[in-house]
């Protein structure tokens, strides 16, 4: 695939370290998520609704980690998708400041039960997301690029703004009731917009660009990407419209179309991988691709629960938690962590070595990352996630606790391994690059 996929265009890539800032902060929030969950593991097998620890952990994960890392990756990728330089990155730095501070305040608000802190954090996060979405949304809308990923990004950014705005409404509802439907049906809507509208749509869209490139797989995916986009967005919009007024037929139809979209995506990933020229994907891509299996697992569990609810049965909150773990940890977490194992070395390589290219030997991008450590981290990640989800679903507390510890170990291995890549960035001036072992990259 080459460097193109990650914005290696020296004339368009950001040079102020903003992507790294977002990503490093996102990883710090990921570690904070583990710390919060680790402080009270019993929440995994307890009831989730309005549980402060879970609210803290969920928002640290989805906003602090998932959203901030995704934003950092987008800063790197949007110029590539558009094929043109982006305007000043002042907006992204404003978004960063808002997000970094806002997430911390929100989490404090959940933890301390402080409405003021929650409101302030929510306002900052809303502002950060709005600035970011406006900046990139406008550029994407104005672009003439025919990349199939472009509509995914536009739709996902719109969903991000809607998600945080809806979250703010829900927070206000807790303090001063606006409408009972927000209490009764607001949470699933919030999760749908964020989990599917923002993360899933963005990840799926970017996957259609990155997976064929990283796997070096021939074949045009444009028609497939467009078909999946219409299924996902069609299902999402129908589901969202039908959910609040409890229009059951609409909800069922929306869920069906959405599920078809997810299945089509999984089918396409398998199709791409079957055609790949690159036999070994590496640890990062291995984890990213495996996330699709967790997505399918979460889909099966969610549809089963929905069918039970449709038939009037009481839905077990433990299984809801298990589905959430598969979706958040397995789908979003594995995909983002896996992609980071490709993106971080790329960003560091460009910042550190691009000026030395052609003048002396520099390491390959792969050499910046300890792929063996990533693969070991993957083993812990998969084992831990499966055990913790199973433990939560079956109320097996020891299993849930052990699984959480194993999962945390896997995540920490990834974080530490990624952190070591940044050492290259600060290891001296470009002109003093040490000879890079046996490698001679883009050299003469």
């Amino acid at each position, binding site marked *: 695939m080459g460097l193109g*996929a990650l914005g290696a265009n020296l004339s368009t890539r950001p040079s102020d370290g903003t992507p790294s800032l977002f990503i490093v902060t996102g990883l710090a929030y990921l570690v904070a998520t583990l710390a919060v969950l680790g402080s009270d593991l019993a929440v995994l097998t307890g009831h989730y609704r309005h549980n402060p620890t879970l609210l803290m952990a969920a928002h640290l994960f989805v906003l602090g980690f998932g959203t901030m890392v995704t934003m950092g990756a987008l800063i790197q990728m949007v110029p590539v998708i558009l094929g043109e330089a982006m305007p000043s990155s002042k907006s992204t730095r404003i978004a960063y400041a808002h997000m970094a501070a806002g997430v911390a305040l929100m989490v404090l608000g959940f933890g301390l039960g402080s409405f003021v802190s929650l409101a302030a954090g929510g306002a900052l996060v809303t502002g950060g997301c709005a600035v970011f979405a406006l900046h990139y949304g406008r550029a994407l809308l104005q672009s003439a690029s025919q990349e199939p990923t472009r509509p995914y990004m536009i739709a996902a950014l719109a969903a991000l703004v809607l998600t945080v705005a809806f979250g703010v409404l829900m927070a206000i509802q807790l303090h001063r009731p606006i409408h009972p439907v927000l209490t009764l049906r607001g949470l699933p809507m919030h999760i749908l917009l964020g989990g599917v509208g923002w993360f899933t749509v963005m990840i799926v869209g970017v996957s259609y660009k990155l997976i064929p490139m990283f796997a070096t797989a021939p074949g045009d995916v444009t028609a497939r990407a467009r078909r999946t986009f219409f299924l996902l967005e069609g299902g999402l919009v129908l589901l969202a419209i039908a959910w609040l007024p409890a229009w059951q037929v609409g909800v069922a139809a929306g869920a069906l179309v959405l599920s078809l979209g997810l299945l089509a995506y999984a089918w396409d990933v398998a199709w791409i991988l079957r055609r790949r*020229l690159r036999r070994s994907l590496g640890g990062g891509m291995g984890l990213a691709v495996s996330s699709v299996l967790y997505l399918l697992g979460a889909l099966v569990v969610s549809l089963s629960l929905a069918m039970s609810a449709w038939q009037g049965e009481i839905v077990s909150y433990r299984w809801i938690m298990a589905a959430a773990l598969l979706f958040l940890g397995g789908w979003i977490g594995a995909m983002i962590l896996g992609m980071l194992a490709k993106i971080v070395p790329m960003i560091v390589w460009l910042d550190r070595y691009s000026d030395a*290219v052609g003048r002396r030997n520099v390491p390959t*991008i792969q050499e910046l990352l300890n792929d063996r450590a990533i693969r070991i981290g993957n083993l812990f990640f998969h084992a831990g996630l499966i055990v913790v989800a199973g433990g939560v679903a079956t109320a097996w507390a020891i299993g849930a606790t052990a699984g959480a510890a194993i999962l945390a170990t896997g995540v920490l291995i990834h974080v530490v391994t990624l952190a070591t890549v940044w050492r290259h960035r600060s290891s001296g001036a470009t002109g003093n690059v040490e000879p890079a072992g046996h490698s001679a990259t883009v050299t003469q």
Partner: protein
Amino acid sequence: MQSDRDELVREALKQVVDPELHLNIVDLGLIYDVAWYDSGQVEVTMTLTTPGCPVGSLLRRAVERTVAQLPGVQEVEVTLTFEPRWSPDFVSPAGRAALGRL
């Protein structure tokens, strides 16, 4: 004679390696055409894996320097094109074999 010189350029360009794939740009299929004129001018038409991409300035510079070092070369002109768009279909059999070993 002409094709021998073009082949010389292609062989030299195998020293230019994509830093992510760790595969040279010739086997990657990025070099579309080479023309070596009697005046000593060499024209290389190449592409990049994606239009927005270009380690462009990196690869282009590396191509210019590499070709310029060949004996008899007076001037190098590198033209970037995205017609046709690069595809993994363009990877040579040797490149495919190398990717399979990665």
